C-alpha cells in the first residue's frame, strides 16, 4: 500500500492512494509508471525526478501525493487560508529529513515541516505548495534522565505522552497547552507554545535545552544539549518560536520539572467581569505567583456546564480557576490569602477542589473548553492577544463593545494571570457577511491589544494569519533584521516561505490551489 497507513497527526487518517507494489531502490521508471497509473495529478508542477527521489528516501509508505490525501494537509487549525502541498512525506529519521531537504533544494521547490497541525495561525500552511515534511512518525522518547532532569524526544512525540511516560518519576514536562493531547513537542518548539501553567513555569522556550535540526541546506546540526548553557550564541533560544522558518527540528532535549508536593485549586465565582479581573490584579499584586490563573466568562461557563455538568453557576458573569502549588506546608496560607483577596474584590463565593479527581475534572473542563463551543455556534474563531495584566478590565470591556458593534457574540476563556486573552468569536461560516465582521472584530481586538502595549500573539504564533500585524508591532528596521537573521539559516527562503515575516515583496510566492474560505 502506498502510504496507506499514513495518518495526519491530528488523528485524521490520510487515506489510501491506491494499490502499489513495494518497489526496490533504483526502479525509478517503474515508480513513475505507478505514479501515473495512480492518477497523481499535481506532479507537473514539480521536477519529474523529485517524487521518485522522495520515494527512494522515505519508501512508498512514506509519500502521499493524491488529491484526496493531500486535502488533509491543506491547512492546520487556522482554516481560512488553504493551500495544498504537492507532496507529503513522512520521514522517520533526521537523516531522511536531511535527504528530503537536499532533494527539495536541488529541485528548487519549497518545503515546510508539520507536526500535528494544531497551529491556530497557519504555521503549517504550505504557502507556494511544494513538499510538506510531516514529522509524526518520529515519535520516540529517546531518553529520560531523572538525575539531570531532562528528556530527549523526537519532534513527533505528542506533548502529553512525555508526561505520561514520566509517571512515577516525580517529574513532568511543564508546558501544557490545551491541545496537549494532540500537539507535538516539535510543533510546541516551533510556536513556543504556552498553556495554563506557564504563569509560574514559563513557556516552551524555558524548557528546551537543545535541539538537533536539519538546516535548509541539508546539514544536520546540534544546538545546545543536555546542559543549561553552551558557549556561543543562544541559537536554541532563537530557534524556539521561529515557526519552522530557520530549520527543521529532529530531536529535542527538554528540561523536566519536579512535580509539586501539593496543589490547591480554587474556583472564584464573580457577578461581574470587572470584579474578576480586579481580583487577578490583586492576587498578583499581593506577591502570590499562582501556578495557573485562568478566567472563563459566562458564555463559556454555560457551554462548559452543558458539556461536562461540573456544577458551574450559570448566572455568574465570570469564574476564575486559580491554582497554587508547591510545598504542602505553605499552601493553606496561600489559599487563604487568595480566598480573602477574591472576597475583597466582590467574589460571590470561592469553591475549593476537594480532591485530585475534582481538580482533574476542573482542568479537563478548562482544557476542553474549545470543544464545548460547538454547542454555541457552527463556527468560531479563537483569537490570541496579550495585554499587561492590569489592562485586563479595559480590554475585556473593549472586546464586549467591539462584539456588540459588529453583531458578533464573543465569549472568553483565557490565561488571565499572563494577560493572555483568547476571545472566541462565534459565527456561522455560511454567511460571508458574518465572516467579514468576524475578521474586522478580530483586527480591532488585536489593535486594542497593541494600543495597551501588548502583543498580537502570546502563544499561537504569527503564522500566515497575523503577518499583517508584524508591521504594526515592529519597525521596518526590526523586520529587516529579522529577515537578515532568517537568511543566516535559510538564505533562499525555501523553508517555510511566506511565514511570520511580511515578505510579500520578497518571496515572490503566491497562494495557489483551492484557497477556499472556511471557518476561521
Amino acid at each position, binding site marked *: 500500500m502506498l502510504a496507506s497507513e499514513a495518518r495526519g497527526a491530528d488523528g485524521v487518517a490520510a487515506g489510501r492512494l491506491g494499490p502499489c507494489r513495494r518497489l526496490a531502490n533504483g526502479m525509478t521508471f517503474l515508480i513513475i509508471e505507478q505514479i501515473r497509473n495512480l492518477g497523481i495529478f499535481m506532479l507537473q508542477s514539480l521536477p519529474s525526478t523529485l517524487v521518485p527521489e522522495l520515494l527512494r528516501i522515505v519508501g512508498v509508505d512514506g509519500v502521499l501525493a493524491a488529491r484526496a490525501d493531500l486535502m488533509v494537509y491543506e491547512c492546520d487549525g487556522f482554516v481560512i487560508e488553504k493551500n495544498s502541498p504537492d507532496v507529503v512525506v513522512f520521514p522517520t529519521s533526521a537523516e531522511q529529513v536531511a535527504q528530503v531537504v537536499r532533494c527539495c533544494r536541488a529541485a528548487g521547490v519549497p518545503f515546510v515541516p508539520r507536526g500535528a497541525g494544531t497551529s491556530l495561525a497557519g504555521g503549517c500552511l504550505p504557502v507556494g505548495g511544494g513538499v510538506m515534511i510531516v514529522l509524526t512518525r518520529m515519535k520516540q522518547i529517546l531518553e529520560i*534522565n531523572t*538525575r*539531570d*532532569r*531532562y528528556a530527549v524526544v523526537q519532534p513527533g512525540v505528542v506533548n502529553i505522552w512525555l508526561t505520561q511516560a514520566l509517571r512515577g518519576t*516525580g517529574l513532568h514536562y511543564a508546558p501544557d497547552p490545551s491541545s496537549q493531547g494532540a500537539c507535538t513537542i516539535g510543533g510546541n518548539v516551533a510556536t*513556543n507554545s504556552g498553556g495554563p501553567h506557564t504563569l509560574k513555569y*514559563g*513557556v516552551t*522556550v*524555558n524548557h528546551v535545552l537543545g535541539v538537533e535540526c536539519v538546516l535548509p541546506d541539508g*546539514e544536520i*546540526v546540534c544546538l545546545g*544539549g543536555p*546542559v*543549561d*548553557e*553552551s*558557549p*556561543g*550564541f*543562544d*541559537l536554541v*533560544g*532563537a530557534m*524556539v*518560536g*521561529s515557526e519552522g522558518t530557520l530549520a527543521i527540528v529532529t530531536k529535542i532535549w527538554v528540561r523536566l520539572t*519536579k512535580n509539586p508536593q501539593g496543589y490547591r485549586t480554587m474556583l472564584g465565582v464573580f457577578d461581574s467581569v470587572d470584579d474578576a479581573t480586579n481580583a487577578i490584579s490583586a492576587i*498578583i499584586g499581593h506577591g502570590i505567583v499562582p501556578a495557573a490563573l485562568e478566567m472563563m466568562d459566562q458564555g463559556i461557563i454555560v457551554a462548559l456546564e452543558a458539556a461536562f455538568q461540573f456544577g458551574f453557576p450559570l448566572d455568574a458573569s465570570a469564574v476564575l480557576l486559580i491554582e497554587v502549588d*508547591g*510545598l504542602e*506546608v*505553605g499552601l493553606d*496560607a*496561600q489559599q487563604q490569602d487568595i480566598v480573602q483577596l477574591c472576597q475583597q474584590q466582590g467574589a460571590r463565593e470561592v469553591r475549593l477542589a476537594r480532591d485530585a479527581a475534582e481538580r482533574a475534572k476542573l482542568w479537563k473542563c478548562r482544557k476542553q473548553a474549545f470543544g464545548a463551543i460547538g454547542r454555541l455556534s457552527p463556527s468560531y474563531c479563537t483569537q490570541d492577544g*496579550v*495585554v*499587561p*495584566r*492590569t489592562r485586563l478590565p479595559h480590554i475585556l470591556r473593549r472586546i464586549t463593545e467591539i462584539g456588540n458593534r459588529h453583531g458578533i457574540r464573543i465569549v472568553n476563556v483565557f490565561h488571565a494571570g499572563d*494577560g493572555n486573552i483568547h476571545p472566541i468569536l462565534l459565527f456561522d461560516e455560511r454567511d460571508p457577511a458574518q465572516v467579514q465582521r468576524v475578521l474586522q472584530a478580530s483586527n480591532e481586538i488585536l489593535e486594542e491589544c497593541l494600543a495597551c*502595549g*501588548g*502583543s498580537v*500573539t*502570546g502563544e499561537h504564533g*504569527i503564522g500566515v494569519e497575523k503577518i499583517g*500585524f508584524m508591521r504594526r*508591532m515592529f*519597525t521596518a*528596521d*526590526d523586520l*529587516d*533584521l529579522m529577515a*537578515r*537573521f*532568517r*537568511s*543566516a539559516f535559510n538564505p533562499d527562503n525555501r523553508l517555510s516561505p511566506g511565514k511570520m515575516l511580511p515578505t510579500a515583496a520578497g518571496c515572490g510566492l503566491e497562494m495557489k490551489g483551492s484557497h477556499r474560505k472556511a471557518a476561521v
Partner: protein
Amino acid sequence: MASTSGRLPISATLRPSDARELAGTLADAYGNATAVYPLGGESSIDFGIPATRPGVGVATTGLDQLIDYPARDMTITVESGIRIAHLNEVLRAERQEIPWDVPAAGEATVGGVIATNFNGARRYGCGAIRDHLIGITAVDGRGVMFHGGGRVVKNVAGYDFCKLLCGSLGTLAVITQVTLKVRPLPERRAWAAVYPDSLQQAEELLAALEHDPISPTAIELLGGREALIAPLDPDRKLAILVMFEGLDCEVNWSLGRLREIVGHAGIGRLDAPFQTPDDFYQQFIEFPARGGAAIVARGCLPPGQLGGFLPKVWQVDPDCSLQAHAGNGLFMLRMSRIPGEGLSRSFVAFLQAEARAHQGSLVILSNPAGVEVTRQSTLGGGYAPYRLMESVKRQFDPANILNPGRFMFP
C-alpha cells in the same frame, strides 16, 4: 578588576546620553570601519582575548534611565546602563527583585550582565537571565536600532532577539534598553551548609535533592580555599550550600527536610540554618571577580557529571577553587596558576576534551595576564556550529566592528 585603559586598545571612550546618539555613534563607526568596544560597568573587561585592533570605547552608562515600572504587572523597563544595585533598590521599594546575584553589582550594568549572561546561584530556582528578559532594544553593527519581544510577559511575535543577545558578549549589538520580568521578594531566605567528605558523598546528596520535593533556590558545591570562605569551615575540602526562599513555614520545613536527607546520605556535619552575614554572601557572589586568580574558567555539564569531571581539574591544579551552581551544572574555576605545561596542553587538549567527554563545555572566562589565550580556549571548539554563528554575526555586524578579536570571531 582591570581598568579600561590597560585592557582595550581604545583612543577614546564615547558616552552617548541616549539610544539615538549611540546609534549614530555606531553608524559612524560602521562607515569608517572603526572597531567599537561596548562598555558597561567594566566589571567584565578582562573577559576574552586581549583585543589588538585600535578603536573606540562606547559606554552605555549614560543610558541609565528608568523608563517604566508598572509594579503590579511585575515588569520593569530600564535603559541598559542602569547599575544592578540601583535596579534592585528601585525594585525593593515595591517588594520585588530581579534574582541576579552578580559580582560588582554597584558597577555592573543591566546590559553588561545580559551580554555576559551572568546571574549567579539563584539561577537554579529562579531561572536564567534569558528567562527574565522579555523585551530588548539594541543597536547592531551597522548603527541600526532594533527591538525584540515587548513589554508583556507572554509574546511570541517575531524572532526572539532577547535570547539571541543573552551571552552574545557585545559581538552582535549594543543593548540600549530592556524589559524584565521581576518577582516578589520572598518572605524569608535561609542557607544550610553541609560538608561532604568526598565527591561521591556530595553527588549522593545532590542526587537526593533532585529526587525530593524539596525546592531550594540555589544548590552550590564549593571546593578549595578561595571558595570555602569564612564562616565556612576552611579545613574542609568540600561544602554544599543550599538556599531556601519562600514563606517562613516553607523555609522551616525545608531545613528540617534537608536534615533528614543529609542524615540518609550519612554526612556528619550540617549547619542549618547556616548563619550568613550579608558580607559572606557578597564575598560568595564576588568569587569569579575577586582578583588574584591566574585564570577564571567557566563551564557547564549535566549536573550528575560534575563528580566525574572535577578530579580532572584538581589533577591539573590541586589548588584550584571551585564554585559550582551544582543544581544547574554551571561552574566557575579559579585556577591558582598557569599550568606548567601550558594552556594549550593542560586546558585545551585535556580539560576541554574532558568537559566534552562529560557532555559539557569549559572555556576561559578571564585571564588577567592575557597569557596564551586563544579563541579555542575562550570559546572552545566543537561545541556549536561555528559556521552558523559566523553567519548570524555577519548579518548583525557585517563590518565586524563590535568587539573584534576578543571572543569567537577574529
